């Protein structure tokens, strides 16, 4: 994979009519072959950023290069290097899956032999070989998303943009799509820029995560590093006998600093989540019967909460449909 397959942005801005700044001066550095998760609630500016990076929307200010080419001045070169599955799987319900592959391949200038070979391989990879000759109107949401992904890959792009690729999918389809995206990055070296509002998706899939809120990146790093910033995991223990609370507290104190707990008592683990087994053994050794034991590891939602003062889920409903859609 060429080194010229990364994404860079400096002070990228997109302002809409009425002075609404959907994207407000973001900086990005996505290395070749990396999966970058762009996490944020609805209306945070994720899709607008993708539209700018894929050349479909000119930036108002700032600059960005994709695959080494400027998105504002070298749109043609950028488009030749990227594949994109935008927020809506824009498919033609009256064409079959195979006809979509033919059309997309044809427009990218592939020969008949290339279209047939590449189309067949991709349809098989996304599990649509059997459905390839059915009209897309009869496909499920998951099938449409998988076809969308296959279409984005027909011309072997070095960089792949996926805008909320698993929104509305059932867990099985979501998992299958995650596997394929991970395989693309690990085996084919494709750079993946993935937007999502799902914490789990960013956590599981992304090498690095950028958290965007109200058009600005509020945190960036590997999921592990971002969570580590939030401190160590905590354990909450609730003894079966309320009289054992103090004894439980003293056992937990061996493993770290006391932490708040809704019921029973808690501890912030000095040595991380691996200490959970030791805690269970220690409590058992003291003869304390436990009604409830919970490990609470910091999540990306905790990071979002710390950076914005809101939880991601709350922000999602608060900012619903806030992102202006270019017309």
């Amino acid at each position, binding site marked *: 994979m060429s080194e010229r397959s990364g994404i860079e942005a400096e002070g990228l801005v997109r302002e809409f009519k009425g002075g609404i700044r959907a994207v407000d001066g973001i900086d990005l550095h996505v290395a070749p072959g990396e999966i970058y998760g762009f996490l944020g609630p609805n209306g945070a500016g994720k899709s607008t950023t993708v539209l700018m990076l894929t*050349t*479909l929307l*000119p930036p108002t200010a700032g600059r960005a290069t994709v695959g080494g080419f400027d998105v504002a001045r070298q749109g043609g070169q*950028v*488009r030749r290097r990227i594949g994109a599955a935008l927020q809506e799987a824009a498919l033609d319900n009256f064409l079959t899956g195979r006809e979509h592959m033919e059309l997309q391949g044809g427009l990218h200038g592939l020969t008949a032999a290339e279209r047939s070979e590449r189309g067949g391989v991709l349809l098989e990879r996304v599990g649509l070989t059997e459905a390839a000759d059915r009209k897309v109107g009869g496909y499920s949401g998951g099938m449409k998303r998988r076809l969308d992904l296959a279409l984005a890959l027909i011309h072997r792009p070095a960089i792949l943009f996926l805008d909320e690729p698993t929104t509305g999918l059932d867990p099985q389809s979501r998992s299958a799509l995650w596997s394929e995206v991970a395989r693309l990055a690990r085996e084919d070296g494709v750079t993946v820029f993935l937007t999502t509002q799902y914490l789990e998706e960013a956590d599981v899939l992304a090498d690095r995560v950028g958290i965007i809120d109200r058009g600005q990146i509020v945190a960036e790093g590997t999921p592990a590093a971002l969570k580590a910033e939030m401190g160590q995991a905590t354990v909450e223990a609730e003894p079966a006998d309320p009289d054992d609370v103090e004894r439980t507290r003293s056992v937990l104190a061996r493993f770290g600093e006391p932490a708040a707990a809704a019921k029973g008592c808690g501890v912030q683990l000095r040595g991380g989540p691996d200490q959970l087994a030791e805690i269970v053994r220690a409590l058992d050794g003291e003869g304390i019967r436990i009604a409830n034991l919970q490990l609470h590891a910091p999540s990306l939602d905790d990071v979002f909460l710390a950076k914005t003062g809101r939880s991601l889920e709350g922000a999602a409903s608060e900012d619903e449909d806030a992102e202006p859609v*270019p017309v």
Partner: protein
Amino acid sequence: MSGLAAQVGWVARRSIRRSLRQPAIVMPAIVFPLVLLAVNSGGLEAATKLPGFPTTSYLDFAIAVCFLQGALFATTTSGTELAHDIETGFLSRLSLTPLRPVAVLVGQVAGAVTIGVIGSTLYLVVGLIAGVRIEAGPGGVVVLAALILLICVGFAGIGAFMGLRTGSGEAVQGVFPLMFVLFFLSSINLPRDLIEVDWFRTIATWNPISYLVEALRSLIITGWDGTALWRGFAVAAAFVVIGFAAARSALLARMERT
């Protein structure tokens, strides 16, 4: 150029497939003009008794209207299909390929025109079977086909502009009745010199549709009428130029890629 031609081919092929796979839309649009032709040629036959009426067969007089209705179908097809592509995001998908904007326009119009021409061919065949006689002979059929094609292209260009400008299939469909009013305020039902109401005759004289229908009709009824033909071709060409210029401008605004 071959790249552009290939792109036009891909878009046109998709457009034709889409249209032909929606019989609920295609069939009424093709059948309706034939039904109107049957009703008018039967019910208005007496109009041929008017002094100065150019033919003794109202069928010969009325069949030109079918061709215009076929072209009108091309207008709504190209407009609603482009609007649909905007609404569903398919145009964005196309914008992410090396596709040139002009190929979207020409391809989409080519698809709509193909359907319009298929309909017009059907009208002509049905008309000939029903007894229509083309006064201008076989050469006249060729010129008739060329004019129908040009009208379809022009109307489809106007439809494409409406679809691209509004981005709404419903808005394009909403213009359809207005186009129909424009049709009926022309000389499609009666020659202009037989329209006795002054305001109607004035509107029909200023209405470009009159010159299209009169050019088509001249080949069927009169034979070779140079004046009617140049006027008809000029109006059709004006529709093409205006329609495509407006549609191209609207398309470039829609495909605002860098």
